[in-house]
């Protein structure tokens, strides 16, 4: 890990941690949710770097959330670290099962297949009345290595937990993006055939990206359900996945921090437009996306690239 990356990670954590001191309760919850969803979107951005867009990342978001909830409710596990590890493990296993299959597809076929998988989960969960059906399930507040905070302390602890996860995941993904495999993904995005005749397996590269996306989706889903205290099949619905794609487009594939900035912007735009235009907030969101696509076709990350000249 380079010194500049270490410093950037430390600076990002300090900045996020400051939020715990200055943000009011409502904003801290909003930021925690936005960052949790940002983790899911980071997985999509990883795939976008290889030229793929998953419209079904809700699958892992939902799977992570349900795994954490079921483990907590069935076995009485409340530790956030253990819940994160278990749900991420389940998402990793499912990602490894589906990854090689989906990695054979490109473009709209990959997008639709990933969407289909998440909708299968949505449909299945909706019919499973023994785990709440469409009503979903509640989960108790988490504990932190035996510590059971309440009220503002709980919210702060959750916010700091997601901040730590964001910094760790963001740093690891940056390292991956700059690694040989990460750069091969970038080459595959530009021209897949070239990568093949140089000896690389585009399928393997896409499988790695998909599996990383699954893991990040699981972490994001676990944190989201612990912040909300409730999960339902909507976590896997196509509109949820669409929201993640929205953030990924807004962020672009050039920068890691821009993913979380985009996730926060989306949550803010949605919250405020919902508040001031309760009946037409989707319209406001659509107009916002249109403006971003026209002004920044490569996303927010391209602002950083323009500033740096030619950095990737």
């Amino acid at each position, binding site marked *: 890990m380079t010194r500049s990356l270490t410093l950037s990670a430390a600076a990002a954590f300090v900045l996020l941690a400051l939020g715990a001191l200055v943000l009011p309760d409502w904003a801290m919850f909003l930021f925690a949710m936005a960052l949790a969803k940002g983790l899911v979107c980071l997985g999509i951005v990883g795939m976008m770097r290889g030229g793929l867009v998953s419209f079904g990342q809700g699958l892992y978001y939902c799977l992570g959330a349900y795994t954490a909830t079921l483990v907590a409710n069935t076995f009485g596990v409340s530790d956030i670290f253990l819940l994160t590890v278990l749900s991420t493990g389940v998402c990793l296993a499912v990602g490894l099962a589906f990854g090689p299959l989906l990695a054979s597809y490109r473009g709209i076929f990959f997008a639709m297949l990933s969407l289909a998988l998440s909708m299968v989960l949505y449909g299945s969960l909706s019919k499973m009345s023994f785990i709440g059906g469409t009503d979903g399930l509640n989960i108790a507040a988490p504990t932190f290595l035996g510590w059971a905070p309440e009220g503002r302390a709980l919210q702060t602890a959750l916010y700091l937990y997601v901040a730590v996860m964001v910094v760790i995941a963001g740093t690891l993904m940056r390292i991956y993006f700059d690694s040989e495999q990460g750069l091969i993904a970038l080459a595959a995005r530009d021209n897949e055939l070239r990568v093949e005749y140089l000896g690389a*397996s585009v399928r393997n590269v896409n499988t790695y990206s998909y599996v990383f996306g699954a893991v990040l989706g699981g972490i994001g889903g676990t944190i989201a359900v612990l912040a909300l205290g409730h999960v339902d099949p909507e976590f896997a619905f196509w509109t949820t996945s669409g929201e993640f794609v929205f953030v990924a487009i807004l962020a672009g594939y050039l920068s890691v921090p821009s993913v979380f900035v985009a996730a926060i912007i989306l949550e803010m735009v949605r919250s405020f437009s919902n508040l001031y235009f309760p009946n037409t907030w989707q319209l406001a969101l659509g107009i916002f996306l249109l403006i971003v696509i026209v002004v920044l076709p490569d996303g927010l990350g391209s602002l950083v690239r323009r500033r740096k000249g030619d950095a990737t």
Partner: protein
Amino acid sequence: MTLKLENVEVTIQAAPILRGVSFEMQAAERMGLVGRNGAGKTTVMRTITGLATLAGGKVFWDGTDISAMSPRDRAMLGFGYMPEDRRLVPDLTVEENMLLPAWVNPDIDGARGLAFVYDLMPELTKMSARKSLLLSGGQQKMVALGRALIAGRRLLLLDEPFEGVAPALAKRISEVITSLRSEGLAVLIAQSELSHSMELLQRECVIERGEIVKVSTVGQDTAAQPVG
């Protein structure tokens, strides 16, 4: 080592592009594939790398039929390909572009390959950290040649290496290819005409409308030799 194409047929959207193409190359041989635009030179290159699907015939390497082998597996055999349009990754630096084959093939010593290329083309050293999208067409050609040299430990396929290149740079590329004689690499160069490569080639193979019409020693205007 021998590369052998035997009655190769390639069809693209029902149009026959290659018709019964047959020729052989030996280790360390430098051969020119000469023909007008649209004659099928690039398709021959793509057939050897596995990018074009065979409609008939076979491709052999060291006596083994590799017709069904993927481009990826052929790259592992030591095939280096420099396409006519260079195909560099715009977001990667010059050095990263050249190291791409070494990242995916454990048999390639990237550092050694890079040192070899920098030794042959010292001008690339100065631009090693520059993104390839910032290079001129001629410079990109040199980077593509460097990448092909790192990937191609046994066979080098160069598609129009002198096309659109300034005379000084064309001379430089020609010198680089000439200096490979001692490396034991087989080199196949596709070109519209031989003006840049008369002295660096041993044989020429003339292709017209997807058919090999003549195989001869460079400088000797012999009648067509039997091919295949």
